Every structure is written in structure tokens, then in C-alpha cells.
């Protein structure tokens, strides 16, 4: 019973993060968080299929490309999976934008980032997002 509710509370997170040091540190932090479940981790958006197959993530943490844009592969994935939420880090690592449809807000600690990821998997915490997604 407890295990079942814990499973429900766990947000499935995928990583598409460069550079490697930041990616591996996020893997460690997410991996040991009781409410987060890491389903895959890659450096390049082109390898994203590896993350999306199997246990589909509810949320992707991604870094922008060198020109500061969202990679085209990521845009395509977002169009195909409209329910997938993105947490976008700038090329330098700063969080620029949380989930789709919500205003940009800055997260500057590891704790705040993990909390954001936990909420990204909780429909109750973001009714406005659900509404927007249902309207699509």
C-alpha cells in the first residue's frame, strides 16, 4: 500500500544535459531523491529516443544548445508528447523556464530544482497546466 502510493508520488525524470559533469551530478541528486525516478540520461537530444522509450518520463531536464535555443530534436519531441514537461537550463546551467504554460522563474539552489521536478509530476500542484494541456 505504502509502496504503491510512493510509486504514484514519484515523478519520472529524463535528462538531456550537457556538460557531462553537470549531468552526472544531477543523476546523483535525482537518483537519491525519494520522490523522483530517473528514467534516462543522455548528452544529446538526438539520443532522446533512448530516454523516451520504456518508462516514459513525465518531465525532461534539458540544456539549451550553444546558440541558446532549444534543439530542434527537442522541439519535435515536445510536439509529439504535449504532456511532457520541460525544465530548461541555460547553456551555463541556470534554470530559465519551468513547465509549459507557466511563467519563467529562477531556481538557484539544488533543493529548489528538485522541488520543481517533484511538482512537475504532480497534476494537483499545477491545475493551470492541466487545463492548458487538456485544451490542446
Amino acid at each position, binding site marked *: 500500500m505504502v509502496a504503491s502510493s510512493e510509486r504514484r508520488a514519484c515523478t519520472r525524470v529524463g535528462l538531456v544535459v550537457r*556538460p*557531462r559533469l553537470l549531468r*552526472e*551530478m544531477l543523476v546523483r541528486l535525482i537518483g537519491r531523491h525519494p520522490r523522483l525516478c530517473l528514467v534516462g540520461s543522455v548528452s544529446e537530444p538526438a539520443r532522446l529516443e533512448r530516454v523516451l522509450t520504456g518508462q516514459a518520463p513525465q518531465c525532461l531536464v534539458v540544456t539549451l544548445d550553444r546558440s541558446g535555443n532549444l534543439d530542434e530534436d527537442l522541439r519535435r519531441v515536445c510536439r509529439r508528447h504535449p504532456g511532457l514537461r520541460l525544465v530548461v537550463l541555460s547553456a*551555463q*546551467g541556470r534554470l530559465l523556464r519551468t513547465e509549459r504554460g507557466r511563467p519563467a522563474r529562477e531556481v538557484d*539552489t539544488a533543493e529548489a530544482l528538485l522541488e520543481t521536478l517533484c511538482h512537475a509530476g504532480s497534476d494537483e500542484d499545477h491545475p493551470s497546466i492541466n487545463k492548458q494541456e487538456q485544451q490542446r
Partner: protein
Amino acid sequence: MARILIVDEIRLNASVMAAVLEEEEDLEVVGTATTVEEALAHAGACDLVLVSTGLPEGGTTRLIAALREVNPEVSILVVGLAREPHDILHHIEAGASGYVLREDSVEELLRNIRAARRGRALVSPEIAALLMERIAQLAELAAESGIDLSQPPDLTPREREVLELIGEGLTNQQIADRLFIEVGTVKNHVHSILSKLNVGSREEAARYLRALEKKGL
């Protein structure tokens, strides 16, 4: 237990790194900082500083120099992308103990931290080759300038003392006041020092001293 300060212009990066390093039993993160000023406030409380290369306005090299001044015993590891190998040399010459690439693994970061605490540096074969090339260049420059760094100069303890004060930029009068000796005696020492080092000016002598200190002589 190594006490670590993390300096990164992006607070989230520093915070993520701190959270990861705090999991290690032999490491303690004493603080994080995003600016040179913030970092220097913690400088006395740490054994090792991890500094990002991205601090604005040359902040990384400024911080390295300031840390060396405030806490000469501190180990400094620079963390950067190093698009050019010479970026790495630039920071090592500024006083860094080592360089960790952002494309390295967390395990490699931890190995570098532990090595730095033991007074060692882990470098890739590419960086080792660059360092050797730079040493050869410096030796060539020294030879052209008539400076022989292969042997420590035969200075008396008093001459060494005077040379160190020259290195601090003191005048003969100031040196005399500091050591409680006559100015004439200082002049004799300076003459002897220049002659033994085979250099023509106080500035060259000061440079020589810095080179000796870098070699640990």
C-alpha cells in the same frame, strides 16, 4: 576532512555541486559563492577552492591571485570547458593547483579533489605535454636572459632576506628600517645580490625571486 569552497557565477551550479560533494564522507562544503568578493569572505575557512572559469571580468584569475595572497596553503582547482588547451595553462600559471574539465565525470572531479589535498595534480597526457612545452620555453627564455634557474643562488641568509624585501617593492631606506641596519649596508647587500644572480636591476632580481619561489627554492 577537506573543507571546500565552491565558486561559480551561477548559483545553481554551485549548489548542485555542493549537494553532491556533501555526500562524500571526507569532504565538507564550507560555502558557495558567485563572486570574487563572496569567495574571499570564506577564504580563511577552506583547504580547497573549486573555481569556475566563467567569473566575469577576469574574476577567475583575480580570485586565484587573491586566494594565494590570503591563504597560500589553499589548493585551487579550476573547473572549465577549456576550449583551448592554453586556457588551462593560463590558469595554472595564475596559481591554480589543477584543472577539471566540465566534460569530466564526477568520479574524476573527486579524484582531482583528493589528489590536490595530497599536494598532487592529475593531468591528462595532452596537458602534461603542454606543461613540458611551456617549461622548455621558460628555460629557453631564462637562458637568453642569462638567468640560471638550475642551481639555487649562493645567497647568504641576510641577502635572501634583503632579496625578499626587494621582491615586496621596498626601497633601500625601507629595507634598512625594517632590518635595523644602515642604508649603506643594504646597498652592499643589493650589489652582492645582483652580482650573484647575474641580473642588472632590482626588478630583475624580484622576478628571479618569484621564479625561485615557484620552484620551491
